[in-house]
């Protein structure tokens, strides 16, 4: 029987003086994952954008639970978004969106 895919939600903080569109952020994330793990590896991450606030420089992404560390490494390798110097840090990881926001509030 097929097992249900377990997911993890990652809260991200974008460390930059510039603001970016959600498309630019996702392009940077996909590009970093593709560079490190290739198309096969990237297909296993289940990466998706859940929430994005450009002004607050905050995003929530979803990944498959077995790919959390890979995505974390890919995120750490990002130095630029849309050719502008940037760093992205993982604030928190959680199993549900509700608990992620709860953890962030604490």
């Amino acid at each position, binding site marked *: 029987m097929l097992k249900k895919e377990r997911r993890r939600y990652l809260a991200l903080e974008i460390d*930059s003086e510039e603001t970016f569109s959600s498309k630019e952020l996702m392009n940077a994330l996909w590009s970093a994952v593709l*560079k490190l793990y290739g198309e096969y590896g990237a297909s296993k991450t289940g990466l998706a954008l859940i929430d994005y606030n450009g002004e607050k420089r905050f995003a929530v992404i979803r990944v498959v639970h077995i790919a959390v560390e890979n995505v974390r*490494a890919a995120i*750490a*390798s990002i*130095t630029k978004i849309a050719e502008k110097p940037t*760093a992205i840090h993982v604030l928190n990881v959680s199993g549900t969106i509700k608990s992620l926001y709860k953890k962030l509030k604490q």
Partner: protein
Amino acid sequence: MKRIYADLHLCPNLNNERQTARMIRKAAALGYRLIAIPVPLSLTEKKVRWLRNLCEEVGIEFASRIDLKPRTPRELIVNLRRLRRRFEIIAVLCETKQVARQAAKDRRVDLLNFPAINFRRRFFDKAEAELASSGLTAFEIDVKPLIMFEGAARVRLMSNLRKEVAIAQKFRVPTIVSSGVSDELHMRKPRELAALASLFDLKETAALEAVSKNPVAIVKRNREKLSPRFVAPGIRVIRRGKDC
């Protein structure tokens, strides 16, 4: 117990006080509790005190570090004799095989570092690891080149690091993952450094130890040795006086 995270290779431009202060504050914000900054010999005692005070202000510990880049084993020995008691951490950037071998077997050396760009000068092989394991020297990996390089250069670096880490683990040489960055935007959280270590097949537990337990143990050991109470490993002066 909560882990104490350490970055033993933070390289701010010490001539730029504002940037240095920003990097130290950021290290604290990212979750580090101990940082080491390479201090050039020309740096005044006043400036080192300033660094120490700044770290104390933001709630992190500061360890003084010197990066030696000797050309011959003889030069390394002379430098070690002169500097060992002045710095809490001594790292050696090994650019020749002879220097690498001498640094690995010398108990006064804490960290072995190898050039990231020149792959022919990465001398961390089995013989080096065997010497390092008996000499209590640790193998340091900077993640800066992993972040900065792209394409073939990064692929080659990861491949080399994978082999070196496997050798280090076989010979029980402690591995230390440091940032090696000189720019705030290249600084990463300890867990992110550990995640980057998975690129060279360091398991999660070992990677977390490489940014917490291993570096902290080196600083603790050296501080004990540098303390005036230290006599020999395991022997300390407890009390001085006529009745002793």
